[in-house]
């Protein structure tokens, strides 16, 4: 009596879809790949070109100006430890990936977030997509990245952007939707055009929330950049990956601590931008 229900070949469909994309749009992916690789190399070379103590000083100065003397001193100590552990170069590589992935993510996320805030229909389409992007296990993004962009940093950026973009979109949408209704009324009552309303009222007022989203995006990007070592991304993740393969917990922890230091610096720094904007 049992009815034979055929298995839905979801995986096959997705694969053929991806195959279609890779074969027919290889020109596009190769183009993206080339541009991204150039960006990565350029930024990486620049950061490597600055002597360690110089970069340390610059970052410390930035932390000091933005968040106070304590973060400045913390930055020097933390970065000096990384340098001392011989993890300077991988740290720079990770930083490069985080910066580029975040930039790409934010450039896409903010307009999308604004659009979703202003259009109820778009909001209803985008929110489930974001849920999907955030709850899908991060590793899964690594797999299609390889046929698109090959092994290496560009694939890492691709996966990282997808994984880290949702909070920036969400917070932008939230920030704009949270602008009090009477301020929107005031802007309308004086005859503001939609773009005047957006740039003079909605965006400035949502800035703290948008910054919180960008902060989240950076944190997620850092965690993904580490995982992306599995598909050949350089950086601290690579050190961890190597330690796992060789079963050397000491090396793994050293690299892990370097990730923690980098994460804390990025977090405090972006949070301080948010606070100064607010006051």
């Amino acid at each position, binding site marked *: 009596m049992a009815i034979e229900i055929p298995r839905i070949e979801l995986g096959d469909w997705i694969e053929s879809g991806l195959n279609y994309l890779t074969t027919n749009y290889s020109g596009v992916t190769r183009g993206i790949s080339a541009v991204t690789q150039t960006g990565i190399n350029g930024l990486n070379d620049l950061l490597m070109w600055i002597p360690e103590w110089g970069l340390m000083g610059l970052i410390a100065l930035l932390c000091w100006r933005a968040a106070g003397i304590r973060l400045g001193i913390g930055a020097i100590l933390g970065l000096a430890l990384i340098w001392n552990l011989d993890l300077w170069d991988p740290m720079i590589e990770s930083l490069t990936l985080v910066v580029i992935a975040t930039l790409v993510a934010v450039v896409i996320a903010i307009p999308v977030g604004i659009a979703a805030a202003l259009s109820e229909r778009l909001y209803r389409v985008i929110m489930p997509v974001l849920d999907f992007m955030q709850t899908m296990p991060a590793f899964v993004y690594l797999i299609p990245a390889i046929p698109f962009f090959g092994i290496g940093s560009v694939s890492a950026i691709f996966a990282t952007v997808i994984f880290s973009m949702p909070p920036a979109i969400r917070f932008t949408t939230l920030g704009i939707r949270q602008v009090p209704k009477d301020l929107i009324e005031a802007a309308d009552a004086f*005859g503001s055009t939609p773009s005047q309303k957006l740039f003079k009222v909605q965006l400035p007022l949502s800035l703290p929330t948008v910054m919180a989203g960008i902060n989240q995006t950076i944190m997620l990007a850092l965690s993904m950049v580490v995982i992306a070592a599995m598909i050949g991304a350089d950086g601290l993740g690579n050190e961890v990956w190597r330690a796992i393969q060789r079963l050397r917990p000491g090396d793994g922890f050293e690299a892990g601590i370097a990730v923690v230091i980098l994460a804390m610096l990025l977090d405090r720094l972006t949070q301080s931008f948010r606070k100064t904007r607010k006051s």
Partner: protein
Amino acid sequence: MSETRPVKIQVRGLSKVFGNQPKKALELRDQGQKRPEILEQTGQTLGLSNIDFDVYEGELLVIMGLSGSGKSTLIRCLNRLIDTTEGEIIIDGENIPTLSTKELLECRRRHFSMVFQNFALFPHRTVQQNAEYGLEIRGVDKAERTETARNALKQVGLDGWEDALPSQLSGGMQQRVGLARALANDSSVLLMDEAFSALDPLIRKDMQQELLELQHRMKKTTVFITHDLDEALNIGDRIILLKDGEIVQIGTPEQILTAPADEYVERFIEGVDMSRILTARHAMRPVRATAREDDGPRTALRKMSENGLDSIYVTSRDRKLVGLIDADSADKAVKEGQQSIQSLIHQNFRSVAPDEPLHNLFAMFSDKSFPIAVVDEERRLLGVVVKGAVLAELAEAGDN
């Protein structure tokens, strides 16, 4: 008399239904159904129904009603922050409900500025930048808008605060910024949505007074929304009473008080302290007799005794008030054979303008019991108020 004034905004047959089947709701309305039945049968809320009124050039029109009466909806229909369902709102020949998006934008910039209950100041902009907002979005150049905004801030008494942020200001000052932002725009109509309701009572009185003075100076057409009858009576040239989305009464504060249109209005005015509303004009009686400057004491005395008075006001040839003489001194002068009353005239009495609130008259009766003279700007004697009349007027007004 006021009907001859030029009309600034003409509202005709304005209705607003909240919901997705406005036609159905209006049909029921036309069959005589009221708001609750319509809501029950269709799920549509009849926000405003068949509103007709004019706003005259330069007047301060108050729209008053309790929450849910539709007053906020009404003021938002005027500048179309809320779209209307049917009816016309005509300002300078333009029908607001039918304007295109672009025309509406222009219309709002030219005609309307708005002051909000909770101020609605932009928290990321300084006081100066807030005041400039309307000009900025119209593309007025920097120097001109700085100047205009600065003047507007000066008018509301905020010079020196230009660089402060709204959060650094008290509630009363924040609303001054709101007012300055509206004034700087120099639109033809000022919309004030419960503008003083969020302020504490003392500040509120001050702001009402200042608004009156500003209005007196600038003659700006103003539509003011409030739920507070005292406020409405205090500032309104005319008042529109709104209930359940319909107009119950339109009239001057006096008309509303002395001839309430129905029970609803009556219940509203029960709480009002009549002595602040009624003025000397209401309680004054015509002068039965006056003495002339060149009368002799004998004539004056006869006028008093004929009319049962124990004092008499003396006027000049052109009816201007000169002073008062009382019967005792006139009697004495007659016995002494004096020919003129000039030396008997004294100024030991009080005179007031006809619009002096009765409230202020109580205190004047405490010392002497001479009637109070009511005089116009040229000191012509219009009438007198005796103590009993004030109380009688109040009692009568209270009974109605």
